């Protein structure tokens, strides 16, 4: 069983771009221990090693044809910060 420690919580926080409070961390450690303890029973499941994972055999990709999308104003409509044309994001390149 994997150890649920602070290092793992830090790693998962980083992957998911979240930061837990101290109280949330302790609760999350306990919860993950319980949940991972339960789901570890998957290792007993009598599956074979072939990678079927199939949902169906159809080719379900649509044709690569240009289609009407949304107007720029619509796409920007819900942005918390924006200009007339762009989403505004924090600066990432030093000027």
């Amino acid at each position, binding site marked *: 069983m994997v150890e649920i420690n602070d290092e793992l919580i830090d790693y998962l*926080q980083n992957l998911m771009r*979240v*930061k837990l409070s101290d109280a949330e961390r302790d609760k999350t450690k306990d919860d993950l221990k319980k949940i991972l303890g339960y789901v570890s029973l998957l290792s007993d499941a*009598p*599956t074979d090693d072939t990678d079927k*994972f199939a949902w169906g055999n159809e080719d379900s990709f649509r044709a690569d044809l240009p289609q009407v999308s949304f107007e720029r104003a619509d796409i920007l409509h*819900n942005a918390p910060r924006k200009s007339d044309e762009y989403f505004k994001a*924090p*600066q990432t390149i030093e000027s």
Partner: protein
Amino acid sequence: MKQLQTALDAGRAVRDKKIGAVELVSECFRSIEENEPTVHAFINFDKDAALERAKSVQADIDSGKLTHPLAGVPFGSKANISTKGYETNCASKILEGYKPVFDATVAEKLNGIGAVCVGKCNMDEFAMGGSTETSRYGVTRNPWDKDRVPGGSSGGSAVSVAAGEAFYALGSDTGGSIRQPCAFCNTTGIKPTYGAVSRYGLIAYASSLDQIGPIARDVADCAAVLDVISGKDPRDMTSAETALNLDKKPSVSGLRIGLPREYFAKGLDGEVAEKVRDAAKLFEKFGAEVSEFDFSEKNMADYTAAAYYVIACAEASSNLSRYDGIKYGYSAFSEKDNTDLLDNYVNSRSEGFGMEVKRRIMLGAFVLSSGFYDAYYKKALRVRDLLREQWAKVFTDYDIVLSPVAPTTAYKIGENLDDPLKMILGDMYTVAVNMAGLPSVALPAGFAKGLPVGMQLIGRHFEENVLISAASEFQKETDYHTQFPIIK
């Protein structure tokens, strides 16, 4: 107890000019004003907008432009289904104020037949939960006992129907989120075959499991709504070409109905088991052949619940990456602090997501991460294949599988919130249906100590019509589904 009109009866009354669409909406809002302080089924509603819409629909009915049996009938829409210009926030702070610039396909279809949306129904945040307790906009309460949960995550949808606030509602079901609140609130609901209903505009939780479906006061209403919202949609490449043939209504006589022995083992409340077995006896009276069976693999229910949780959290961790505080929704950016990009992501997501969401996406990240992917995620996918094979075998011997929906009746608010395992085990009977993409109809099976007991009829892919026929026969002979609570 009291009786409430069905959606089809309301639609008939509108067509027969016994009542107008505006009066129907007003009736719903009278219930909303009376009951919402107790049950809190809705996150938001707009009476003026609904009345305006009703006036416009009535004009189209009067001119003959709208003739559908559900034209003019008010409904509730779960808060994860996009409705253009109307706040759709998935019960999360991170989408507070978010107004989609498009309608979900299901919303477009219902608009097209003259349905009137009264508001957005409360839910567990991002559909992650089974009790409608994790909403950032308050807990929804069970109208049968306001100290108990209504179930989830479509708790608000089920309550809106049970409380007389809407004639039907749309919910979504990823691991039982239509069926379980139906069982707890005494409503009828359908989780369609995966692909039968377009997910375009459904704000995603787990894309290989999510399906939108109807919740209503009887199966005829559910079937009528399903007929409108189902169908191939080029905007959802997982939607299916296969038609549902809902007008074909096979007789129950001669159908083979199976009860999975494993589901009736330990953990199932005795009174719930008794009601489901009573229902099985009634199906026998209708001429169905009823027997018990075992899945060919032992412990299938446990493997399935574990695999479901791994797959759902993995998909959620990917689907929720889009919430970054930049494109839409809540942002923690501060001009004063000159927040950098990483902190903007971290702070927006940490403040915007609730604890249940954070836990699930972190678990999802874990099972997808290097070193753990094979043992957890890949293994869960293989269990899913095994499960599909199991069900394919079952459906060579049976036409319908009858089972409980939940191991108990509605539990007290706060009782299970702190124990993630109780939540997982509570989904034991429902998640297999989503994992295999099967359809299921949930309907009332009686009462235990004054609380509703639900059962589900599970069928082969795209055989919703078989389930609807069986449910319809049951509802002709019983009156459990006609009873609704007087809310105190």
